[in-house]
């Protein structure tokens, strides 16, 4: 996992040229995108939503944004856990509550409410609609790139990927549910998972982002995944985006925001279930590191590929397989020794 933290510390710095991480065989159409992407994002960190771990403290060092400015006034109502309403267009429940604890642990923890929500909220009932407000992650991060005290990561690379994603291309504004960063990432609780998060938890947290909206997949035979054997087991072990982002041009530490629809997604089992499978490289770079730490390099080298296509990467199966092989060798050896001893005795008796 040690690979994760390095890019993070660089996140706020000037865009790194990244000569060493050039994409393997980019296709023509995507080459430019990747080039731009890598220039902009400078390899921001890994897992959930790929965000910086630490943001330079805001001017008045360290204090929670919820105690600054008028924030306390806002929180008089917005702390309420059930503050929400049902949108008359989408009929979905819109959550307006701010979880104090989550906010104070989020990357935006030192921002006062008014720093993002600048106008229209002085009086209750508020008259500003979300459309008027026009908050965007990319714009704000862009705006503050040059600031001395705040160095938010530049999101322009993600934005380019996102513009090519199924979410951006197929979002239907007329349905009322316009897609934005906020559809997946809650800025009031956003923070990357710590480096030492076990891979299964990384996978679970990551996939939950998708499943929160794609509730139709919560079925015994999930729609579109009929071809995939044991889908739930797969979902517990790999991230949705391992299949649903382009194979080409992956960077180990920057999950692509170019989410693919069903048709374009990877459906080739061998991409994962083979030595050095491409699809899993991003995720399993962490796992391999973790395993090396736990089991030592030799054990990792022995076990890592000792599994059968179509089966899981379960270490138990690895061990059983190894045990079967060992037992067989033992059996053959014992048989040989027996034969030899019997032969010797026979000779001796003669």
């Amino acid at each position, binding site marked *: 996992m040690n690979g994760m933290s390095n890019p993070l510390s660089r996140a706020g710095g000037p865009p790194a040229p990244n000569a060493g991480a050039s994409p393997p065989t980019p296709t023509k159409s995507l080459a430019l995108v990747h080039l731009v992407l890598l220039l902009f994002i400078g390899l921001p960190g890994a897992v959930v939503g790929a965000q910086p771990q630490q943001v330079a403290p805001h001017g008045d060092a360290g204090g929670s944004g919820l105690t600054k400015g008028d924030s306390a006034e806002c929180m008089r109502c917005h702390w*309420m856990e*059930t*503050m929400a*309403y*049902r949108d008359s267009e989408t009929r979905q429940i819109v959550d*307006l509550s701010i979880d104090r604890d989550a906010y104070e642990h989020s990357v935006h923890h030192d921002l006062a409410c008014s720093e993002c929500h600048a106008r229209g909220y002085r009086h209750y009932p508020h008259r500003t609609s*979300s459309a008027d*407000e026009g908050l965007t992650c990319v714009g704000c991060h862009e705006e503050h790139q040059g600031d001395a005290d705040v160095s938010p990561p530049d999101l322009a690379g993600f934005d380019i990927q996102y513009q090519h994603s199924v979410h951006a291309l197929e979002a239907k504004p007329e349905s009322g549910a316009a897609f934005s960063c906020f559809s997946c990432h809650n800025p*009031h609780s956003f923070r990357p998972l710590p480096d030492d998060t076990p891979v299964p938890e990384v996978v679970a947290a990551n996939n939950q982002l998708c499943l929160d909206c794609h509730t139709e997949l919560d079925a015994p035979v999930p729609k579109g995944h009929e071809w995939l054997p044991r889908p739930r087991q797969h979902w517990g072990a790999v991230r949705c985006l391992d299949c649903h982002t382009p194979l080409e041009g992956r960077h180990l530490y920057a999950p692509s925001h170019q989410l693919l629809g069903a048709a374009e997604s990877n459906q080739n089992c061998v991409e994962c279930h083979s030595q050095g499978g491409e699809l899993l490289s991003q995720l399993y770079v962490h796992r391999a590191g973790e395993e090396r730490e736990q089991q030592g390099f030799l054990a990792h080298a022995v076990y890592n590929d000792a599994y059968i296509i179509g089966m899981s990467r379960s270490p138990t199966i690895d061990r059983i397989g190894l045990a079967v092989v060992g037992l067989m060798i033992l059996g053959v050896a014992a048989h040989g020794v027996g034969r030899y001893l019997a032969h010797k005795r026979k000779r001796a008796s003669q």
Partner: protein
Amino acid sequence: MNTPTGAPATGPARPRRFDPGRIAVILFAVAVLLFLLYKLVYPLVFDAYTGVTNAPLSYASSQTLSDAEFEQLALELTESARRDKAEAAVTEDEDRFARDLKVEILMNTPSYMQGVEYSHIKYFRDAGIRRYEGPSTCLACHETMQVEHADGSLKTVGTLDDIVNSVHFKFQSAEGGAFSTFGYDGRRVNAEGSRPIPVGKINRACGIPGSFSWTGWARLVKSAPHSAAVDDVAALPEDQVVLRSEGCGQCHIGGNYHPATEKMMPVGDVPETAKQGIDCLICHAAEYDMNQRYVIEDEHGKRWNQDRSMRAALSVGQTRKETCLNCHQHNMGGDAYVNNVAAKSLGDKHQRILHTGAKRGNPFSPESDAHAAAGIQCTDCHVPQGHKIPRGTKGVDLVANDLPDREVTCEGCHSEAPHNASEHRALLNGHIARIACETCHIPALEDTNVVLRDWVHPTWDEEEGLWVFTDVYRSGKPGEGLIYLWFNGNGTFLANALGDNPEGDGSYDPLMHQIAEITEPEVIAAVRAKAEELQAIYPSIDVDAYVKAATQPLSQLSPEMLAKRREMIDKNLKQAMADGESKIYPFKRFNAMMYEDMVNQGPFGAMILPFDYNVYYQTGDSLQSVKVAIQDEIVKRMYQEPFKLYMMDEFMAYFGVEGGWKTQYPIAADGSMPDVEANWMRQMGTLMVNHGIQRQGHTCKDCHSPDGILDYAALGYPPERVEELSSMDIVDEVQEDFADIPPADTPELSANR
């Protein structure tokens, strides 16, 4: 080894010491004997031991009809529906006479009979059923039924068994697991691993708490309507006396001479004769005549009459709110509630005694409840599982619960964002984290809601001609009859809501404060006025002492008992209070002054004793009435060793009485009752109220103002939160009349998170 014991039968028969065949025969014989003893002898011994009677039951209303009478009745039952249908079709004729004729023709055609008939008219017609005999008639077709469980699985069960083992029949349950009641000893009642005891209810609103319903199941009480007070109504000449019906059996479907006593025991079953007394129709017949519900007497004793007419039987179907309310409006709206339909049909004779003080005062009727007005049926929320009806997982009291795991909630339909019409909907929804729906949407209970009831000092009711208990204080208003407490779904053995303030400073202490004292000056003044009134009848009453005991029931405890109480609350109940998620709920508060057996007393109260209805109503001698009631066979048994071991020791432990049940019978050899004392229970009961829901609930200012209905300090908020919550500055920004604002067309609130 030389003679195998399992020798083949071909050998010569020789006596064997351990012949397995013989042992099998002996075992079989013993099993048969035990079975016969259980089936034949046990019921007789049990009846003799508990002093209950069982005999075949008959009802005058169960009459055989001729085919012609049957058809006539069928036409009558559908007439208004057919007429409505025909009148809707005949619209063009101006001439009234011609129109009437056409309606007559149409409504008697087979087409117009279809669809408006009760389904069982056809079934009974085809099956040749011309008399309703009770459960046996129903069971001829409905011997088994499909029961749908919460997980959607279907199971076929015996219908009779299903109903006999439901709370509606036996009105007790020994369900464990999720049962929400805690003993004052800190144990969850009938939890896994404990010895389950049958629990019904301890109901201080009735003079006969659940466990004593034998002493007042069916009674014929003599009354002297519109006469001045008399010492003994029974001594009046016959022509001045009117018989009235009273007793627990009026609302419980067992039609026997006593409640389902047999079901109190771990073995044994209700006799077949009693099962045939079940009143299927009171729940299932749309045309049930509540005027048939009165006490009758035969050579075996008294019991409640039923409507077993073909008229009722032909109208059977699924239960509807009207059938549920035949009984349940009695404890919801109350007998005196103006829209209580059943209370308008008190009986063709021996009319049932009306109770003017309401037990809950939250009616369910279109006039008083938004859901009833919307045509919602009881079973839409209380979704039955066969004959078992869920009452929800939250229960503050000891009332039996057939399905303690099955939810009955507002959120089930309304979701977690229920407010849609108001401009302030997000703010209103925000309150749900801490405030239960009922807190705002039951703004008040009925005025007849009784808060303090004195059973010890009855007063003469001139209109009815009876001595009745004295309702010392009635009110349905917030802060008077309705109080607000933290509640997490747990309750105590004596119906006290448990919960705690999630943001509290640890000062929330309801069992020593809110529900153990009445502090509102206007309430105290009303109690004093009533005490002075009572003093005119009972000169021995010391008004100051009376008011103190009624409003500060803890003042009746000795200092040691008070210290013990403090210790038990801290040690035993804190965990049950801190459990789960608490919200502020409204509760009807209630206390009663009754006679208690002080030998069995603890810091939360002593064993309350029942009243004999006849003596009580006819003479007003409450103490004598207790003396008669406790001479009932079953109460005597309670004061003996087997019952002590079987359930009373456990019952006392939950009650907070240490040292087990003391079997010292309250009546001494000389006929005196030295240890029987009149007391108020040491804390009020808090009864959940969930009906009488109003669309327009409380307004912001009702709570968020310095003199609002929520006492934030008593609810355990720290002082700075108290100040914030009771300040007016936010409220002033919010328009009060938000219910009149039409639903917004566009989301004007920020949708960004």
